[in-house]
C-alpha cells in the first residue's frame, strides 16, 4: 500500500503557483481477468490535468478494458485508483460519474427512440421532471456553444447521423460535469473531416482544464493530437512517451513488439471476370440501398471496396451471396451465366464463399462444435454422407486437417465448442470453412476487424493465396490501410454505388476524397 501511494505521489506536479497539483487520475497495479484470460496485468497509468493523453495499442491490448474500469463498467481484480490525489473505489458507472469521470464508448450507449435531450436527461435526474429538463437544455446549449458543436436536441437519436450521435455522447459526459473525459476509438466511424473537427473540440476541452484520455489504435492520431502517449500491449503498459521524442517506426515497434511487417501490395495475374454486376438497384433500406451499381471482379485479383460503413456494403454482401433480392439490374457469374436473384444455397454451390463482418453472429455457432462449424457448408452442399446419415468420422478427419493447415490455435480437439476460440482463431476457422469448397469468388467483409496484427496478417495471407490460386476476391473494408495493402484494384463505395475506381498503387488522398464526396 505504501509503495502504491508512493508511486502516486511520485507523479505529483508543481502547479504554476507553486502548490501541488495532483494528477487527475492515477491507476496503480490494475489487474483484471476474464475467465482464464488475463486482460490486464499490473497496469500503471497517470493522467495530468488539462492534457490529452493517448492510450495506444492494438485491438485486444487492454486499452478499453482499462478505461472501462475507470468508468465503472468493470471491477478490477486488484489494484488502486486515485482521482485528484484521493484513493477512490469505483463500483459502478454512477460512482464514476460522481467522481467526474465520463466515458464515450466505442459503441454509443444511447437510447434510440429517445431524443438527444432525453438521453442527456436520463443520466442527470434531479428535481422535477420539467425543471430538470429545462435546466439541462440550457446547460447543454451552453456546452454546445463552447466547443462549437451543432446538434438538434429535440430529434430522436435514431434519426441522427453517427457523428451527431457521438456529439450527444460527449455532451452527456460534459453536462455530467466530467473533468476526466475518456474517448474510446472516437474516430473509428468518422470521416477524416469529421475527425479533424472532433479533435478541435477535444483540444478546446483540454484548454478549459478537462483531462482527456484518447483510446486509439491509430498512430497518426496519437502523434498529431496527444500531449503524451502510453502504449499498451498484451494487457501491460509498454511505455509512456512524448509524441515529440518518438518516430512512427519506433512507436510501431512499441505497439507490435517484435516488428511484423506485412508484405505490401503484390499484383496478381488477373484473368477474365468471374463476377459482373450491372446497374444493380435495391431500395430495401435494411442493410442500405444500392443504386446503379456496376463493377467487375476478375479471376486472380483482389478487388477492394473502400468506403465509410453504411454506404451499402451490407446490402452488397447480401445481394452477391443471394440473401436478398435486387429490384433491378443483373449479376453474372463466370461459368454459370445470369445468377440474378438466385437463392443463397444455389449461389454457394456456384462457388461463392463469404467471410462476413460479424463473425460471431453470422459465421460461427458458438454453442456447437468446431467440427460442425467447419463442416456445415459442406453438409449444405450435400457432402459428408447422405440425408439419412451425416458422416461424422469424415467431418472429424477433415476438421483436424483444416485446423492444422489454417493454424487454428487453442484447439484441444474437433469436438470442442467453437465459442471457445479467440477472435483470430474463430476467423481462421471461418476462412478454413469458406475455402474448403474451392470457391471461385470470395467476398470478405472487414475480415481483420478486431484481430491483432499477427492474426490479420495471417488472414491477409490467406486471401492472397486464394487470389494466387485464381479466385476472385472482393475485400470490403472501412480500414483504408487494409484495402491499400491488399487490393489490386479499388472501387470506392459511396451512397450505394461505386463512385470511383483506382488501379493499385492508388493515391490515398484521392480515395479519401471519393469516400466522402457527394458527386
Amino acid at each position, binding site marked *: 500500500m505504501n509503495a502504491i501511494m508512493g508511486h502516486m505521489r511520485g507523479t505529483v506536479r508543481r502547479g504554476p503557483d507553486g502548490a501541488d497539483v495532483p494528477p487527475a487520475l492515477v491507476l496503480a497495479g490494475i489487474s483484471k481477468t476474464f475467465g482464464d484470460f488475463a486482460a490486464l496485468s499490473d497496469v500503471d497509468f497517470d493522467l495530468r490535468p488539462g492534457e490529452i493523453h493517448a492510450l495506444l495499442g492494438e485491438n485486444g491490448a487492454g486499452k478499453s478494458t482499462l478505461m472501462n474500469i475507470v468508468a465503472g463498467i468493470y471491477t478490477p481484480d486488484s489494484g488502486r485508483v486515485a482521482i485528484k490525489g484521493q484513493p477512490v473505489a469505483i463500483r*459502478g458507472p454512477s460512482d464514476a*460519474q460522481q467522481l467526474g469521470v465520463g466515458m464515450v464508448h466505442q459503441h454509443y*450507449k*444511447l*437510447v434510440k*427512440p429517445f431524443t438527444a435531450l432525453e*438521453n442527456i436527461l*436520463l443520466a442527470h435526474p434531479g428535481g422535477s421532471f420539467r425543471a430538470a429538463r429545462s435546466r439541462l437544455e440550457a446547460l447543454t446549449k451552453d456546452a454546445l456553444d463552447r466547443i462549437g458543436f451543432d446538434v438538434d436536441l429535440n430529434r430522436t437519436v435514431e434519426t441522427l447521423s453517427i457523428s451527431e450521435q457521438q456529439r450527444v455522447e460527449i455532451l452527456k459526459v460534459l453536462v455530467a460535469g466530467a473533468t476526466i473525459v475518456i474517448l474510446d476509438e472516437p474516430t473509428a466511424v468518422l470521416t477524416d473531416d469529421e475527425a479533424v473537427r472532433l479533435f478541435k473540440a477535444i483540444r478546446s476541452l483540454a484548454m478549459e482544464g478537462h483531462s482527456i484520455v484518447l483510446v486509439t489504435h491509430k498512430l497518426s492520431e496519437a502523434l498529431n493530437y496527444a500531449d503524451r502517449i502510453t502504449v499498451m500491449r498484451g494487457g501491460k503498459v509498454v511505455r509512456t512517451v512524448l509524441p515529440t521524442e518518438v518516430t512512427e517506426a519506433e512507436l510501431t515497434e512499441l505497439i507490435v513488439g517484435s516488428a511484423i511487417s506485412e508484405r505490401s501490395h503484390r499484383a496478381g495475374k488477373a484473368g477474365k471476370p468471374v463476377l459482373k454486376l450491372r446497374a444493380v438497384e435495391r431500395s430495401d433500406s435494411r442493410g442500405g440501398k444500392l443504386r446503379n451499381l456496376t463493377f467487375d471482379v476478375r479471376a486472380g485479383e483482389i478487388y477492394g471496396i473502400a468506403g465509410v460503413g453504411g454506404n451499402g456494403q451490407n446490402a452488397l454482401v447480401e445481394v452477391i451471396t443471394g440473401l436478398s433480392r435486387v429490384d433491378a439490374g443483373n449479376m453474372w457469374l463466370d461459368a454459370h451465366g445470369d445468377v440474378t436473384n438466385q437463392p443463397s444455397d444455389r449461389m454457394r454451390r456456384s462457388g461463392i464463399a463469404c467471410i462476413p463482418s460479424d463473425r460471431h453472429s453470422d459465421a460461427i455457432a458458438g454453442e456447437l462444435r468446431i467440427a460442425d462449424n467447419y463442416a456445415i457448408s459442406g453438409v449444405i452442399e450435400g457432402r459428408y454422407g447422405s440425408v439419412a446419415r451425416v458422416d461424422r468420422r469424415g467431418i472429424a478427419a477433415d476438421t483436424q486437417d483444416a485446423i492444422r493447415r489454417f493454424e487454428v490455435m487453442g484447439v484441444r480437439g474437433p469436438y470442442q465448442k467453437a465459442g471457445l476460440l479467440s477472435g483470430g482463431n474463430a476467423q481462421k476457422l471461418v476462412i478454413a470453412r469458406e475455402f474448403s469448397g474451392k470457391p471461385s469468388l470470395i467476398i470478405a467483409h472487414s475480415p481483420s476487424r478486431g484481430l491483432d496484427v499477427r492474426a490479420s496478417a495471417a488472414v491477409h495471407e490467406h486471401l492472397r493465396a486464394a487470389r494466387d490460386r485464381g479466385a476472385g476476391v472482393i475485400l470490403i473494408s472501412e480500414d483504408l490501410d487494409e484495402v491499400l495493402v491488399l487490393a489490386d484494384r479499388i472501387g470506392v463505395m459511396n451512397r450505394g454505388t461505386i463512385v470511383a475506381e483506382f488501379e493499385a498503387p492508388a493515391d490515398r488522398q484521392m480515395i479519401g476524397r471519393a469516400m466522402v464526396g457527394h458527386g
Partner: protein
Amino acid sequence: MDFVVNWLANVPGFAVPFALAALGLIICEKAGVLNLGAEGYMLVGAMAGAGVMLSLDVHPLAALAVSALAAGLLSLLFALLVIALRVNQVISGLVIVFFAQGLTALIATSQGWTNRAFSGLQDLNFGVLSSLPGVGRIVFQQDLMVYLTIVIFAVVVHVLRATHVGMRLRAVGENPEAADAAGVPVGWYRTGAVVVGCMLIGLAGGYLSVAVSKIWVDGMSGGRGWIAIALVIFARWQPWPALAGAVLFGCIEALIPRMAAIGLQLPQYFVLMLPYVVTLAVMVWTSLSANRRSGQPAALGQPFVREERR
C-alpha cells in the same frame, strides 16, 4: 334498445380485467421483461381475492388489495428467475403459469373455496344520474373499480411519459447498456416493473372473482391473460390503445351471455370460442398493418449482464 343498453352496461365489467392485465404487462414489457405469466398472476389474484372474501369479513376492496399483493409476491419468484438468474424469459413465464395453476387449484381445494359463491363488489349508485335512461345504467351504475381503472391508466401514462422513473424504466427496456452507463440500476428497475406490473395483473384477476363472477372456479381466468398479451402487441405497448382493445374484448364477452338471453340459437361452445378466435384475428390484423414492429421495446426478452465479454 333494451338489448343494447343491457349489453353495453355489462361491457365495463368485462373490460376491466383485460385493461388492468394489459396495463400491467405494458409496465413489465416497457422495462424489457417479457411476461408470459399473465394467466398465472390472474389466477393467483382471483383465488386470493375469493379466499379473502370467503374467509374474512372485510370490504371487497381489501380482498382486491390482497389479490394484487399475492400476485406481487409470486412475481418476486419470476423476477428472481429472469432478472437475477437470467433464465430464459419464455420458459420462466410459462412455468409460472403452470405453477400458478397447480398452486391455486391446490390451495382452493384444500381450503374448500372452490365453487362457493359470495357477495362481492357491488355497483355504485349515483342517485339521479344512475337512473338516467340508458346512459345511467351504462355510465353511472358500475362498481368502483371501473372508475378506478381509468384513474390507474391516467397515473401510469403520466408516470411513464413525464417522470424520471418512467423515462428510466423505458430506457431500461430499450437499451439496458445505455441505461446502465447512465447510472440507472437496471435490475432494480426491472424488478420494480415486474412487481408493480404483476400486481396490476393480479388485481385484474381479483376483479374477475370478487366483482364479476363472485365465485372461485379452478382455471377461471380462462385464457384472459393470454388475450391480454395479444392486446399489448395490438396496442403497440401504448396504454390508451390497450384500454380501447380491452373495451373491444369487453364488448365481445358481454355479448356472449346476451345472445342466449335474446334466444339466438347458436351452438354454445362455438360462441365460447369467440374471444379466442377474435384474438387470433386481431393478431393477424396487427401483423398485417404497416410497421408492426414499432413500439416494441428493443431489449424485450433479453437478460442484461454487464460483464459480458466477447
